[in-house]
């Protein structure tokens, strides 16, 4: 009796959720499938009155090509997760959106297919600043999706204006116990190397050791090592200083407590990243993938994505759009799109590149030393 009741209740639960949750019903014989693999929370998905880009793409494709498409949208939390999945050959995806250094690695290992630009005419809207970047010098395998710059976020109620200059703020003993540092080796060492003016892609062990010394000196005054915990800590005022990406600053600004007044600035030099759309070699339907990429580059989806993700867009249709500029506001536009003489030069000098095996091992060892000592 007990068993029957619980099983029945459970089944009712599932059926009711299936009724209200499921989007597409029985598989249509003529229906195409597109498998997209992207970061989590990295596309405008209809929440908070934003445009549901995936649904709109399915509708648009049906209208223009007459065939129904179902998009399987999967997410990952880091480049390494995505790489492991693709490398194992266990799953096939048609579109994937990795970060720059991962694209360089995947190109090296023949994991990406060259894009057919005739199927992606909207690529002309990507600003020239984003051509010939180091990871894809001939612009064959990728087209930029978002980009970002690392900056320092601080609480103006705690930090004095004169101290908010350069990377030194994160090493300032006056704010001991209020400083947050990246909890991943590349970014943490990066902050120390930018501070010292060392090349972040150096292979010289002495340079890495110098960076380790900086981080060891910083250890006593930091509050903790964080990644996404930084949001809650900064918003509630538990920490006053932290380095993170420009777009994420606005998310924190939105949710900050009344007693907190968050500000942002770029120290020099700093880290740049670019996330770009690519087609992996396991792709099942290249034309469909290219149609999707082309759709993502068109005005409405690109603006919707840029507004949802809050990162900067390399797409002219976005940053020149009056609606977008109004929606973002002056301050956001200034921070997300700083006046750089040449993004290309800054990027090619300061972005993280794929390190060789030896240097990666050294980095691993030094990181462990730092954390354990």
């Amino acid at each position, binding site marked *: 009796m007990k068993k029957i009741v619980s099983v029945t209740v*459970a*089944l009712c639960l599932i059926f009711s959720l299936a009724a209200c949750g499921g989007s597409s019903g029985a598989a249509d014989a003529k229906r195409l499938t597109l498998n997209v693999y992207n970061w989590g929370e990295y596309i405008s998905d209809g929440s908070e009155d934003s445009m549901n880009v995936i649904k709109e793409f399915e509708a648009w494709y049906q209208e223009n090509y007459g065939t129904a498409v179902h998009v399987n949208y999967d997410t990952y939390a880091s480049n390494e997760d995505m790489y492991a999945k693709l490398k194992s050959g*266990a*799953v096939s995806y048609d579109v994937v959106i990795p970060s720059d250094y991962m694209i360089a690695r995947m190109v090296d290992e023949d994991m990406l297919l060259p894009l057919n630009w005739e199927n992606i005419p909207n690529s002309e809207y990507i600003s020239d600043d984003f051509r010939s970047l180091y990871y894809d010098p001939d612009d064959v395998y990728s087209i930029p999706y978002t980009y970002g710059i690392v900056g320092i976020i601080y609480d103006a109620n705690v930090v004095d204006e004169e101290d908010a200059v350069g990377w030194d703020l994160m090493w300032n003993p006056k704010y001991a116990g209020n400083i947050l540092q990246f909890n991943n080796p590349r970014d943490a060492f990066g902050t120390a190397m930018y501070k010292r003016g060392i090349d972040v892609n150096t292979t010289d062990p002495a340079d890495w050791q110098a960076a380790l010394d900086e981080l060891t000196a910083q250890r006593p005054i930091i509050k903790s090592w964080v990644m*996404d915990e930084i949001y809650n800590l900064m918003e509630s005022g538990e920490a006053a200083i932290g380095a993170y990406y420009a777009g994420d600053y606005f998310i924190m600004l939105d*949710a900050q407590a009344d007693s907190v007044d968050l500000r942002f600035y770029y120290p020099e030099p700093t880290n740049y990243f670019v996330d770009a759309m690519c087609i992996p070699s396991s792709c099942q339907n290249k034309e469909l993938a290219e149609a999707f990429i082309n759709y993502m580059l068109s005005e409405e989806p690109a603006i919707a994505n840029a507004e949802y993700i809050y990162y900067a867009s390399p797409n002219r249709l976005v940053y020149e759009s009056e609606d977008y500029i109004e929606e973002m506001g002056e301050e956001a536009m200034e921070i997300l799109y700083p006046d750089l003489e040449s993004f290309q030069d800054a990027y090619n000098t300061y972005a993280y590149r794929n390190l060789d095996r030896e240097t990666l091992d050294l980095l691993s060892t030094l990181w462990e030393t730092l954390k354990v000592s």
Partner: protein
Amino acid sequence: MRTSMFSRLWTVIIFIYLFAPIAILIVFSFNAAKSLSVFSAPSLKWYRELFRDDVTLASLKNTLLLAVSASIVSTVMGTAAAVGINKLRRRWLAAALDTVTNIPMVNPDIITGISLMLMFVFVGRLFGLATSLSFWTMLLAHITFCLPYVILQVLPKLRQMDPALPEAAMDLGCTPLRAFFKAELPEIMPGVITGMIMAFTLSLDDFVISYFTQGNGFQTLPIRIYNMTKKTVTPKMYALATIIFFVILTLLLITNLIGDEDGAKRRRSKKRV
């Protein structure tokens, strides 16, 4: 049993410690602002957002579907396996099988996950498939790690049971199969139910193994939440967690109330005999 003031206080403290995180989650699911540390105003905003989010609801449906299928299959298989192990004459063989079935339980999840993924890829390659992983591979993986728990729950009940019962049933004319369903199964039913509930909970909760064996378009809820962490987990997840918590609470209340009725009936009928 008379409990002292101290032990009652201690119980309360333990309960607070266990349920404080869930309580905070529930409170902040009604938060108008997006943060987990600042409560601005009560609102149902995140519940509305949750029901508009197709992807999350789809992943919830996937998770439940997987959990129910895995628990039913592993309960049936596990019970059959336990009956078989119990009947073995050679004790060393029974002991060996016991150890082997415990391996998925003792192994770290990540080893089980990776080895299953590699095996599926290997088999997929043999068949020339582009995608080796799908709902079915996830189901197989979940059944694999749920089985030992079911066997572990059923086997002791079988050992406790008086072997004369099914023998008596067969003496009275039952076929062995009928004897099993009529005589043995009711005796071991508590073990079977517990095993099924454990399998359901483990499957619902699983992250590492699901992560390695998931295929295209079939993401489960734990994986979906994990993937949100690069940016930030939006409060609609708190809303979802609150809903799941209350549903399970209701389920448990219902089954326990009806269970009491059943037990009371049995006690009354026994008295009459």
